[in-house]
């Protein structure tokens, strides 16, 4: 007898009837309400996660554009974005190291230059990078690399078209004062502001030196950008350079110099915890919304579940079905939220000048959180189904 029952049980255990799916789409209004509820919680998490990434990306916007194999900075620099230069004579030492193709100095100032904004005619602090327009480009950003030849004329600058609007760099401005000297705007590049700088200028080393009343050759160097001959081993060249240079200098790879800034931001920036807290709240609210949705759904279908139990379906089958339906509901909320978020990122990113972008990582993390909250809610709610007694329901 029992042996005869077993195969037939097995036969209907793998569900040919997609119960979870049918339940999901049975009531379109309810599905709409459920997915809207979950979608908002997902949107909240995505927006918070996106802001956290965006702040990070903004603080790295300049350093990730550096174009070279190795970089030499002062060893006492705690982050890329602060002035702490070294003596220019070290450039010659670097050029003598075998395997080195080019050594290009990058000069920078974060606190020294005040740009008179055409918007309010007042001086505003801007970040300045100075390069040798004749040398190989040190920034891979379009607008700098392809326009740096224009900087050969003295007192010309390239300006950041994504600078904050009160600086008036995006408009039709052709010249303005910089620390009292008139400079001509000869081109634009899209970089964007970070925590410290509202806008950025790029000029030639000769123009930069004039502001400090010195010559380009005597200017202290912020970063030496080194390109190796093709086929050179980066790690070996890094060791050779470090050996040739005094201990007061540090030779870094691209990923190490990006890491230096990232590390600083991660340890000292207070923005990250705020957004993590926001994400957590989104998760809790999402769990709550999911629980209410799933609970209501289960209560409404309790007679049906009880009937299924009555005709011999086991708890395992019903739980699996409830969980599957929870996951489907989660996805139904996730997809519209993900799409809506693309628009939010675009609009807020453009207004706040923050690099907000949907990435695979963000998609996976938020999807994981969404499914997690739906499953968690379903697991709490499913007790009702387990407790459902066919004899009592009717």
């Amino acid at each position, binding site marked *: 007898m029992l042996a005869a029952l077993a195969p037939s049980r097995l036969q209907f255990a793998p569900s040919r009837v997609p119960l979870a799916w049918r339940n999901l789409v049975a009531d379109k209004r309810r599905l709409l309400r459920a997915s809207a509820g979950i979608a908002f919680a997902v949107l909240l998490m995505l927006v918070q996660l996106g802001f956290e990434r965006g702040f990070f990306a903004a603080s790295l916007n300049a350093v990730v554009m550096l174009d070279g194999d190795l970089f030499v900075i002062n060893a006492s*620099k705690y982050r890329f974005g602060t002035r702490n230069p070294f003596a220019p004579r070290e450039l010659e030492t670097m050029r003598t190291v075998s395997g080195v193709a080019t050594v290009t100095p990058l000069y920078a100032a974060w606190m020294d230059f005040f740009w008179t904004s055409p918007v309010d005619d007042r001086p505003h*602090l801007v970040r300045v990078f100075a390069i040798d327009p004749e040398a190989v480009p040190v920034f891979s950003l379009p607008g700098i690399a392809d326009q740096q030849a224009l900087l050969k004329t003295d007192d010309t600058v390239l300006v950041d078209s994504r600078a904050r609007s009160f600086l008036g760099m995006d408009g039709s401005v052709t010249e303005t004062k910089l620390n009292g000297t008139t400079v001509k705007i000869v081109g634009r590049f899209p970089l964007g502001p970070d925590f410290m700088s509202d806008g950025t200028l790029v000029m030639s080393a000769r123009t930069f030196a004039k502001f400090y009343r010195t010559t380009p050759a005597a200017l202290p160097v912020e970063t030496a950008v080194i390109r190796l001959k093709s086929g050179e081993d980066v790690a070996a060249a890094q060791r050779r350079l470090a050996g040739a240079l005094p201990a007061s200098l540090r030779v870094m790879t691209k990923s190490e110099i990006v890491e230096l800034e990232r590390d600083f931001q991660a340890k000292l920036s207070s923005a990250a915890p705020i957004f993590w807290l926001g994400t957590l*709240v989104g998760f809790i609210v999402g769990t709550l*919304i999911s629980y209410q949705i799933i609970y209501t759904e289960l209560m409404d279908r309790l007679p049906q579940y009880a009937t299924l139990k009555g005709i011999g379906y086991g708890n395992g089958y019903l739980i699996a079905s409830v969980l599957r339906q929870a996951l489907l509901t989660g996805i139904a909320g996730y997809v519209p939220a993900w799409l809506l978020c693309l628009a939010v990122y675009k609009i807020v990113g453009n207004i706040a000048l923050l690099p907000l972008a949907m990435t695979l990582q963000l998609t996976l993390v938020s999807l994981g959180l969404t499914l997690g909250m739906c499953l968690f809610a379903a697991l709490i709610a499913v007790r009702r189904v387990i407790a459902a007694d066919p004899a009592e329901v009717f």
Partner: protein
Amino acid sequence: MASHIIGFGDTVLDSGAMRRPLRVAARLAWRILVHEKGRSALALVGVFIAILLVFIQLGFFIAVPQGGMLVYDNMRFDLLLVSTNYQFQAQPWQFPHARLTDAAKVVGVAQATPIYFAGAAWQDPSGGTRLDVFLIGFDPAARPFAVDDIERQSDILGKTDTILVDDMTRPIFGPLTVGRRVDLDDRRVTIGGTYHLGTGFLGLGVVLMDEANFFRVTHRRQDPVNLGLITVAPGADKDKVAAELRQKLGDDVQLFDRAELTAHESAYWTSRTSVGLIFGSGLVVSLIVGLMVLYQTLATQIARHLPEFATLKAIGYRDASLAMVVTIESLILAIAAFIPAAVAAMAVYALIRSETLLPLALSPTNVGLVLAAVVIISVGSACLSLSALRRADPAEIF
């Protein structure tokens, strides 16, 4: 019609008894809520979290402008004299010292004292990283800071090459022990003590110095100055003094009273930086999510009681009467959740305050605004969830 069978319908015309349907509706709403305590508690928790979410986002939204005011809030002045190029506290530009000397001569001005700001590199004499630190130079005798720790240690400030350090200066600066020697822009100074104020948005670390020490480190002179703190003599009319100062001083300076300064700094942080937009959008999203939670909760409650509501309809209750029941139910839920949420928000704010020293506080206006938003949202979601009720057909339910 059935309306004369029970309650609502016929009493509406009965002048003077307008309050009765309300009381009946309130009693019914209350009964529904206490009937299933578990369900109601769950709904309450949901609404509580939604309101707490709004409070937290609001807190972040206001924390930044308030953080920008931290140092000013702890300085003694009635009027602040700054350059016309003044941006915000950490970028104040500068103006001639002579403006302060002139200001001091105006009748009603008790004191006009300069404050000097500079950035410097902080490095341990043994080497290591050169960290950016914010320097404030002032005359301790003028008592510009209303901070006990600073006033108590004013004679320490007077010692040559001795500094006070804010105890919220980040740990990467190393131990802030008294007697430790550090290099500020290559000049060796000694830590004479710490004080408890908070670095606001001035930087990762803040150092206080007496003017003479400040000039030695920064190679600056008495002229120009960054800020001028003006104190009005007791009994003098502040507005009159301000008007006279504005008239007498040159057009390279401007004058803020406390309210104007707060407005200026807060406008800087909310509109010049992306802070306003980011936390503003967080606030908007949290309001929408709050609405969703409230609506879901109420819609669930109504869906569960649909047979009962349909019965009430069948025996003659009008939609309007049922709407009143649902609205009252949602208001009871919202307000019952609002009170603990406000208390929990205070606790969260206190935690943020002690961790960051940001002067984060809930003003009665903010509490009122959140309460208003909650009431509007709960009435709104009651209206939304009523559509199910309106469709409820007594003949179909059973």
